[in-house]
């Protein structure tokens, strides 16, 4: 995803607005005004239409729970100049489906993401995190934590989930890194896209021929047993959805939250002293950072009530997740990181029927990273001045482009 939101303006006539470069972890200051002003304003979006922007926590939840909203346009299309708002929904594209079609597919997939199933993956994730820390320590600082840690871990977790052969994982991981990298040139991107689609198609065909004990294999068997066989196209689209939805998000959370925690030594010390804090810490960082930074786009298919206003059929609506997550009526002192806050009801995974399917997996990955990274490299620190860290201000998923870090010799044990 390299589409960008350009030409952002800093007044309330348009959405989104730019962040204050001095506060790279905070949403644009104007979003606080949005929450305070009455009603749900209609703001111009870069895609070329106006959308009603919902910014208060309670309103975001009410809107996203409303069955009269359609997800047919991709969640961040509003910030993409020239983005397609009426592209037909590809079969298997869970994020863009509505109603019964969405429910059918989501139910076929959900058994793979239950709390129990994901807990069973935890030892695998732990091993993966430890292996990458071993390699980092072996390599020695300074090193880019994004390239060597944040990107490979979620990608390999998805390989494990989908049942990609071990021999193919390096190649798969390289190509997906290009695909979601913001530094890739268009030709490399096109090439990586073709490779990943080809790769996923091959994987699906292999699993169809001999379904194994992995997500795709079980999904194929389950769908067959329910008399709802999935086509190759549906399976490929689903596989790629899981890959993109689960990789870019988790990778950016790892990089950005590490930086934010390094800037808050007291909070980091508390986490290091008490690994039991990891659960609430992860949810607090999800809330605080709200990396799906432009929120999610919907279109009303009937009347939708938000507060005391009615949004009419045909109107576009943006649920500004980052604004809702800083609503002080729900999260006191919202601009402060408080790892003990217990902010589990945040909006970083969305709300309603599309609420992140992979959220338990994301939590486990981030928990293991939070605990192990700082325990094994207690002297971890930035290797460049903070001002030199580049933020992905235009990317649909917020994060840092690179995170050069280093540590004291004594951690290399």
């Amino acid at each position, binding site marked *: 995803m390299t589409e960008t939101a350009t030409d952002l303006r800093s007044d309330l006539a348009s959405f989104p607005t730019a962040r204050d470069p001095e506060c790279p972890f905070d949403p644009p200051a104007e979003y606080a005004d949005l929450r305070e002003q009455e009603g749900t304003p209609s703001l111009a979006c870069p895609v070329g239409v106006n959308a009603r922007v919902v910014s208060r926590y309670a309103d975001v939840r009410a809107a996203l729970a409303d069955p009269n909203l359609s997800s047919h346009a991709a969640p961040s299309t509003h910030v993409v100049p020239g983005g397609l708002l009426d592209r037909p929904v590809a079969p298997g594209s869970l994020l863009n489906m509505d109603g019964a079609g969405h429910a059918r597919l989501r*139910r076929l997939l*959900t*058994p793979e*993401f239950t709390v*129990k199933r994901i807990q069973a993956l935890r030892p695998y994730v732990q091993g993966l995190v430890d292996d990458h820390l071993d390699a980092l320590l072996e390599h020695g600082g300074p090193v880019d934590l994004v390239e060597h840690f944040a990107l490979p871990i979620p990608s390999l977790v998805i390989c494990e989930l989908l049942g990609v052969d071990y021999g193919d994982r390096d190649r798969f991981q390289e190509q997906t890194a290009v695909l979601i990298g913001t530094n890739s040139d268009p030709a490399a991107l096109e090439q990586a896209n073709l490779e990943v689609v080809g790769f996923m198609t091959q994987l699906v065909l292999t699993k169809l021929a001999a379904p194994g004990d992995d997500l795709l294999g079980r999904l194929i068997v389950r769908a067959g047993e329910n008399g709802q066989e999935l086509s190759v196209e549906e399976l490929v689209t689903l596989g790629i959805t899981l890959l993109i939805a689960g990789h870019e998000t988790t990778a950016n959370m790892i990089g950005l939250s590490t930086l934010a925690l390094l800037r808050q030594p007291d909070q980091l010390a508390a986490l290091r002293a008490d690994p039991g804090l990891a659960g609430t810490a992860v949810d607090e960082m999800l809330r605080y950072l709200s990396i799906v930074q432009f929120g999610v786009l919907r279109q009303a298919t009937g009347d939708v009530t938000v507060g005391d206003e009615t949004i009419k059929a045909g109107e576009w609506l943006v649920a500004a997740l980052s604004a809702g997550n800083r609503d002080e009526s729900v999260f006191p002192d919202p601009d402060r990181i408080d790892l003990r806050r217990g902010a*589990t009801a945040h909006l970083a995974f*969305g709300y309603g*029927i599309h*609420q992140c*399917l992979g959220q338990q997996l994301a939590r486990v990955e981030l928990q293991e990273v939070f605990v192990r990274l700082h325990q094994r490299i207690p002297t971890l620190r930035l290797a460049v001045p903070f001002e030199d860290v580049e933020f992905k201000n235009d990317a649909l998923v917020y994060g840092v482009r690179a995170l050069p870090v280093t540590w004291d010799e004594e951690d290399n044990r």
Partner: protein
Amino acid sequence: MKVRVDVDACVGAGQCVLAAPDVFDQRDEDGMVVLLVEDPPAELEAATEHAALLCPALAIVVER
């Protein structure tokens, strides 16, 4: 306290299982919510209410 769940509305996000594992579980076959206790004891009431608040599908109803 009385608890009801609406399995048709559930989207299997598992928030309830994390919040109140003694009250909610998920079915192995489709990941949908299972109510383990209909009238949770006093010590589980707070967690049960929190689960209802978290549920993204408004599939948990708590009556006092």
